[in-house]
């Protein structure tokens, strides 16, 4: 039996030391070359998107799937004489592409919204689902379902619901004079609970068809992706994301605190209202096309912050890219490995909750509660 002394290191210790050293080198490299991290994330997301398009249950070579993907992505018409079959084209164009894009956009929307909300509210415990905006959007969506309204009306009502919920949370925190700490979280829990009870009431009143749609909304599914649903999310996510990116400097100033932001000439109230409206729009669009996908908006910005730091110029896009990858990989797992319709929202929560618990344990709530 070998006894380990202070001088003798175990293989595990050596491995840990080696990893630590490599990580330090990598961190140093990314600090010195600022272009490297965005490039790495951009290439990773592109690789995940393309890789997801190449895999699936339909038997097709990677080469063939890649060929179809490239041709679909090019701005001209598909060749009339092609090596692929009509069914192979249908699989890529009609099944995989909408689903992959939807998963990516859902992750991007939630990651970016979470980062913006955390910056605006100066609270890393905030996410779209914790401040009631997701539940509010779901309630709006349920209203639209109950009245058999169209998909675009569903987005509109979900937007209204999300906006009202976020406004309600913010207003309640304002009344409690606790904008940035536990008061905000409590307000979000109150408003979220109210909205979820509305969703349950909808379930109570729903007929079989409505009940199935509301069930999908609550559990968060990506398996019903169509070009229409993708476009319903693409436009708000990219437009809203662009607005948030334009406000990146201001969000940085806002995260310093109201007094500092005011002294630097920022119209704090207007800025906050703008961010609330944009985030509500993005989350509403996401909820109305894919249902409640929990914890992405809370967990992903934490990961992004570990990679790029708290600067919103980098944090916002990094959260979007990591969110896109996270949801896409989970959906790939559901689609390719499990081959069954487990709700994506269920899996993101299943993975996200232990992760946030780990952070909770590691950080001992440092910087989480400002009150």
């Amino acid at each position: 039996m070998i006894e380990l002394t202070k001088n003798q290191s175990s293989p595990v210790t050596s491995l840990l030391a080696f990893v630590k050293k490599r990580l330090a080198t990598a961190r140093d490299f990314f600090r010195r070359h600022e272009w490297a991290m965005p490039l790495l994330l951009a290439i990773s997301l592109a690789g995940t998107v393309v890789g997801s398009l190449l895999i699936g249950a339909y038997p097709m070579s990677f080469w063939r799937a890649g060929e179809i993907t490239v041709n679909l992505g090019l701005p001209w018409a598909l060749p009339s004489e092609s090596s692929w079959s009509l069914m192979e084209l249908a699989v890529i164009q009609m099944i995989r592409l909408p689903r992959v894009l939807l998963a990516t956009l859902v992750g991007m929307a939630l990651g970016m919204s979470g980062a913006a909300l955390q910056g605006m509210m100066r609270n890393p415990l905030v996410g779209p689902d914790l401040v009631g905006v997701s539940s509010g959007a779901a309630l709006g969506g349920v209203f639209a379902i109950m009245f058999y309204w169209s998909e675009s009306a569903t987005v509109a009502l979900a937007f209204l619901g999300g906006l009202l919920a976020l406004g309600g949370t913010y207003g309640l925190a304002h009344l409690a004079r606790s904008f940035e700490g536990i008061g905000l979280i409590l307000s979000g829990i109150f408003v979220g609970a109210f909205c979820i009870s509305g969703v349950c009431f909808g379930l109570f009143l729903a007929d079989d068809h409505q009940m199935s749609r509301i069930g999908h909304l609550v559990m968060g599914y990506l398996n019903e992706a169509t070009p229409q649903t993708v476009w319903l999310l693409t436009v708000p996510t990219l437009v809203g994301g662009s607005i948030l990116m334009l406000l990146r400097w201001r969000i940085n100033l806002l995260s310093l605190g109201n007094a500092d932001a005011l002294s630097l000439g920022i119209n704090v109230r207007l800025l906050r209202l703008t961010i609330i409206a944009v985030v509500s729009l993005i989350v509403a669009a996401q909820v109305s096309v894919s249902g409640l996908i929990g914890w992405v908006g809370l967990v992903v910005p934490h990961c992004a912050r570990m990679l790029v730091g708290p600067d919103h110029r980098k944090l916002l896009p990094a959260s979007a890219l990591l969110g896109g990858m996270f949801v896409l990989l989970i959906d790939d797992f559901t689609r390719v490995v499990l081959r069954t319709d487990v709700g994506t929202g269920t899996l993101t929560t299943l993975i996200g909750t232990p992760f946030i618990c780990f952070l909770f344990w590691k950080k001992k709530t440092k910087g989480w509660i400002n009150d």
Partner: protein
Amino acid sequence: MNLFKINSINELIWMLPFTYVALLSFALLRSEPEFPNPDPQHNRFIKDSNGIIRAIPVPFSGVASGKYWAYDFLQKTHAPESLVKIAGPNDRPKYIVALIYWFYPLLVEDESRWDFPDDLESVLANDRGYVHFDGRFSRFGLNVVAFMPEITTQDDVISGMIRCLNDIVDQPEIGQEFITDYQRRKRNVTDELQLETIFKRPKVLNLVSRPDDWSNLWGWSGDDLELGFLDAAEDLTAMGRGSEAERFLAMNPDLIFLAVGDAPRFMRDPRWLGLKAVREKKVYGMIYRFNPYGFDSDSVPLILRWKAELAYPERLKPILRELARDHYEKNYGYRLKDDEIDWFLRMDENLSSEGYSRFVRINPKPVENQKQ
């Protein structure tokens, strides 16, 4: 501060993924692939339940079906050889416990028919020119026939399904026979009942609830209004509209039919002791059906007769056991044993209810056999 100011090349790199995701989204604007029309030489054409012309391969290459459509197919065509795929392996246990297993045991035991995938891509990969019933597949060039008509009455739906499914398997005359037989069996009940001479109509409640929770009972109006029943749940006609227990006490129905749960348990529950139906022991667990998930052309006339015999015992002869045995023997070539009829009539549970002794077999089992 200029909103649009880009400070470094790094910020442009951050924009790269957003750009390519947006560009890739434009690929969705392409028109969907158009699949060629079926070759008329190798297909025959029928009208589906919505009146749309559909191609059926000649020779008939088999029908792949998911979910519970196999019940409908088998029940309305009696052509198990045409059903080459039924569902996934996880669905088989649901079929084994159903009456279908008695009639088509080989079909249920044949593993090759139980490997039908759930996900869309696998369905496309495994298609061998089958005829499908799932409407989602039509976008992908698969042969899909909708056999469920969009008509409101149960009889019209059942007739429409029988007609369409028998057209698919190319036996329209047999389909017409089934429709006629179904209508005749229902008419026999109402003719024998002579409803127009009945003036005292019972108030009937059909209940669905979890067996261990009677606190939230759901009312639903069945199709038994044609037996002259008064619907005790008239105010709760919408399916899924829940109601709390007190309202059911206020309804105070004459008869209660339980779709889920058993009658003795319901009648023992102290909350329901005040109900007239409980006092008079007129609570019955619904008999099992051939097709638990769809419009059941075998069971609808039998259930109609069963309810009528319980509600108007003096009007109808107690011949339900013989009717059931004859029906299944004629249609499926399977002669139900006494034990099997006892099972699907739920004799063990319902025997303590008023009037259920009329369904007892003529030569009941000796006590020692029951123990075995």
